[in-house]
């Protein structure tokens, strides 16, 4: 626990912040598609930045002493700090595909303690605070209980990583398809984690994500009864390396076994 922080109050701030970012994303959705062909990135950068500013505005008002690190504007990384992805799934957003998230996570002493993931275009808001359980639109969620052969894992394409990491990733991808029922790659890591928390998916693995991508969603998984580690089973290193394995206890263990054997 983190006794010096009022996590319930900070969770309320994070929810308000994610909702504010989500409204910006919703209002911008659709109009971006035509712009992409004229000037790649420009308009979407505006949406990213506008969402981050909306999130930052709420965080600054509700928790003025806690530094904020955002994907777009960067910032300070303190012992206690917010990590914000104001528009997770930018490619989807650009192309009119509604799988996008707004992720607001609070990290203290090297672990996430508050996490909110909004899915503004699909009408869901997930939240958790350390020790308090995980919720979707106000209802408690738990990770799935399916055996691996009936499980679906989500993953991402490690496009931020150097091409060299493909040699780590590709054999795992292949073996996962043989071990589990199926695989999904919707394109927004924060939602992959949120959907792993509520049992829609059973697990998630990816390399080289940003802390802003995973802090909130990983807490959702943990508070929903799941396990989160890096690819070697380390319970803390994933937050900074972005090499993450998450899921229900059985699926998480099976994923680690696949990684070890790949």
């Amino acid at each position, binding site marked *: 626990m983190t006794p010096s922080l009022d996590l319930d109050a900070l969770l309320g701030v994070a929810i308000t912040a994610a909702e504010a970012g989500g409204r910006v994303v919703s209002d911008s959705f659709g109009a971006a598609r035509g712009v992409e062909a004229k000037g790649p990135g420009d308009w979407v950068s505006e949406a990213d930045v506008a969402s981050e500013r909306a999130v930052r505005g709420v965080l600054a008002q509700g928790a003025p002493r806690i530094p904020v690190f955002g994907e777009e504007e960067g910032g300070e990384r303190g012992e206690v700090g917010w990590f914000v992805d104001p528009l997770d799934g930018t490619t989807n957003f650009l192309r009119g595909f509604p799988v996008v998230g707004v992720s607001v996570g609070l990290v203290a002493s090297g672990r996430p303690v508050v996490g909110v993931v909004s899915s503004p275009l699909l009408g869901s808001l997930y939240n958790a605070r350390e020790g308090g359980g995980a919720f979707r639109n106000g209802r408690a969620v738990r990770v799935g209980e399916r055996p691996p052969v009936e499980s*679906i894992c989500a*993953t991402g*394409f490690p496009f931020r990583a150097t091409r060299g990491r493909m040699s780590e990733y590709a054999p795992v*991808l292949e073996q996962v398809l043989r071990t589990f029922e*199926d695989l999904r790659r*919707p394109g927004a890591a924060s939602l992959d984690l949120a959907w792993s928390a509520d049992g829609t998916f059973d697990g998630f693995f990816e390399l080289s994500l940003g802390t802003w991508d995973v802090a909130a969603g990983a807490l959702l998984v943990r508070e929903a009864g799941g396990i989160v580690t890096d690819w070697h089973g380390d319970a803390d290193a994933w937050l900074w390396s972005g090499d993450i394995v998450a899921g229900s206890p059985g699926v998480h263990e099976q994923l680690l076994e696949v990684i070890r054997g790949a």
Partner: protein
Amino acid sequence: MSHDELLALFAGAAGAQHDVIAALTGQARRERTMRPGQYALDVAADAAVRVVLARAEVRVVSEESGTTGPEHAAVVVVVDPVDGSTNCAREIPYWGISLCAIDADGLLCALVENGATGERSTAIRGMGAWQGTARLTPSTNQRLEDAVVAVSGSPHPVPRWRQYRALGSTALALCDVAAGRLDAFVDCVPDAEGPWDYLGGLLVCREAGAHVVDRLDRELVVCDPTARRQVVAAATPELLEAVRASTETP
């Protein structure tokens, strides 16, 4: 029957599917049958859809119930009552219904609808592909390095595309290629697709100007419920060949 009459019939079938699925919640939504890969929701949707299609003089080829209806009907309707059943069972918002009418001249008209979002794609031979009032056009991407490619299964080695998606519905992925949301779709599993999986999306793609082939260049327009194909689709001919070449099994 005219294409307008057929599309009205298809809309009725989509509505019937929607009502049946909406009534299945919780465990009833996730229940499997004894047939591998089949859910109870597939069977329920199939029954509801066939009731609607039986109002017309059409032969029906369904993933769930095979071939039914008048043997010498001028139109065959190939239907997947729920494409993306696993997504539907888990409430992943990427599943739908695919209906395609075939007459003596080939693909006549099609309707593919995302059951989670309600987004409906339609196509009529020679008249384009549409989502509501928006005419569908694919992207202009020609290079693998710039492409977002949806896959079924896993290619080996992983090609040098910009990003990939694995979404779980061939019919919807083909419509997303037609609409420019995806640049390509490739099935990496040999002969896994029945005609109900791809025919609706095939006409949507063709009418939008996207390109679709079988990996082995077999005819895609078939009504045989035992036929299986391996679909590759892309926004441009250049990208189609790049995707096909990059996902060849060594």
